């Protein structure tokens, strides 16, 4: 394993404020938040609904399929949700990667022309 260059070179100075203020970066952050926030709220609500219902009601105790009660079905749905949201995240994150790379490219070009 070769030694990582990151550990030996002094950190490069970037104009973080300029990038943060650029419209491209702002739009990326906005898009990310628009994706992350609703889904996070959704999966947390979905997750806490199960213990809430089992703690304060017995609606999930009714049989759903044969002797399998609804609580097991709901629990299994949490697995499906976790796997699906995991794959959705990766797909979205790969799109964001492309955008953030183009922001960095643009920034490098600007910094280069300043010197």
């Amino acid at each position, binding site marked *: 394993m070769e030694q990582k260059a990151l550990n030996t070179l002094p950190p490069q100075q970037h104009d973080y*404020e300029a990038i943060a203020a650029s419209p491209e970066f702002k739009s990326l952050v906005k898009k990310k938040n628009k994706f992350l926030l609703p889904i996070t709220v959704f999966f947390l609500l979905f997750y806490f609904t199960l213990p809430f219902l089992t703690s304060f009601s017995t609606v999930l105790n009714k049989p759903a399929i044969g002797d399998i009660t609804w609580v097991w079905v709901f629990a299994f749905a949490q697995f499906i949700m976790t*796997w699906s949201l995991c794959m959705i995240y990766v797909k979205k994150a790969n799109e964001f990667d492309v955008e953030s790379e183009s922001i960095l490219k643009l920034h490098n070009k600007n910094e280069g022309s300043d010197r």
Partner: protein
Amino acid sequence: MSVLGLFFFAAIVGLTLYVTYWASKRTNSASEFYTAGGGLTGWQNGIAIAGDYLSAASFLGIAGAIALNGFDGFFYSLGYLVAYLVVLYIVAEPLRNLGKYTLADMITARFDQQKIRATAAISTLTIVLFYMIAQLVGAGALIQLLLGIDYWIAVLLVGIMMTTYVLFGGMAATSWVQIIKAVLLMVGTIIISFLVLLKFDFNILKMFSEMKTVTPAGADYLNPGVKYTNGIDTMSMMIALVFGTAGLPHILMRFFTVKDAKTARSSVVYATWIVGIFYILTIFLGFGAAAFVGSEDIIEANAAGNMAAPLLAKALGGDLLMSFVSAVAFATILAVVAGLVLSGASAFAHDIYAQIIKKGQVTEKEQMKAARYASIGVSALSIILALFAQTMNVAFLVSLAFCIAASANLPVIIYTIYWKRFNTTGAVSAMLTGLLSALILVAVSPNVWGPEGTAIFVGDPLFPLTNPAVVSVPAGFIAGYIGSLVSAKADERKYAEVAVKANTGLK
């Protein structure tokens, strides 16, 4: 202990020591020691993360809990699993982009102050210590049962093994021990699940129907409420499980062992699939143990149900499978405690020694030396504490570790990445409030105070819940919010830097 059993144990010890020897030859820098040089691939790190989750508590604990309490045991599986989404959506990538070796690195990427680093390191060390004692006490009791040796010998054995892995092999050895164990554990679990399903003619409906009659709980076995009757306490436990994971130091540390955020992301995906499948299979382990071992025999072997999985292996596959499963359980404990030692040692050697005491002015060699001494220190301290804690109920130590992680670490992680107005006062108050409220509330909870024989001290608990997360997690968030508002304005330039780094991975 049969010859077969000894063979499996010797094979696992030999294999892991060989891996450590191999790793020791390349572990010659601090970065190698703490993070395996960031050189793990997505799938390797993914299996290792899964391995960190599949601790003895998961394999033995959840199987036993489902066997004895039906659906109530499955709550743990749900909490641990959905916790992955919190890690993936909120924490993983920004953490990888901002940090180097530890959680404190990430927070000080925004607030470069010693007091913040010190607070973060203390909260990490507290979590590691409680988690370690829980694992070691559990390990001691388990190995005592499995091998028929004394408790103190069992604890020392585990202690020496874990110290060896970390001391000589650092993160590379720890990760590969974790990977080997995770694969073996999945193989064992799949074999047992297959045998259980075979007994039920591969008919899930038939399995559920039969479960209604084979346990003392009767038809209620399939419904929640066998064990958890206090609704608020159940909610509180679920809060700690889902938010605690994203603040556990030995899990967070795993994101520094890969080269970039993209690899961190893919490792979480591998881990989510592996762990999800494993947790589905815990149903078969639990049901199988309840049906083919019986709750009486499970409780007789261990009141908490920890022996359910090994006993089931024996009932279905005889001594061969039992020996294999026991050896895997042993490997599981070793791998998890090794990861804990490493995260504790990095908090001490990297944060407290190198950055605070030496102000970052240390050579590579000094860092390595400090890390190794810290590993020995963390190991020795937890071994000694575990020897005294033999009679302690380990469940509450684990719940405390999760609670502190959720209350002290998660609020500060989220604010650091996402909140512009956050500042140093907010960071320190969030961490201290989360840490102290969790500690104090547990100290006055029914885990510690109860009638004769049920808790550590005899008396009435001041706080009614066994798990304080429902209070301490919001307390951490609120303290961070108020602390930030009452003190000087945040440094917006620094936040711009953090936001850019977290979102683009720019160094």
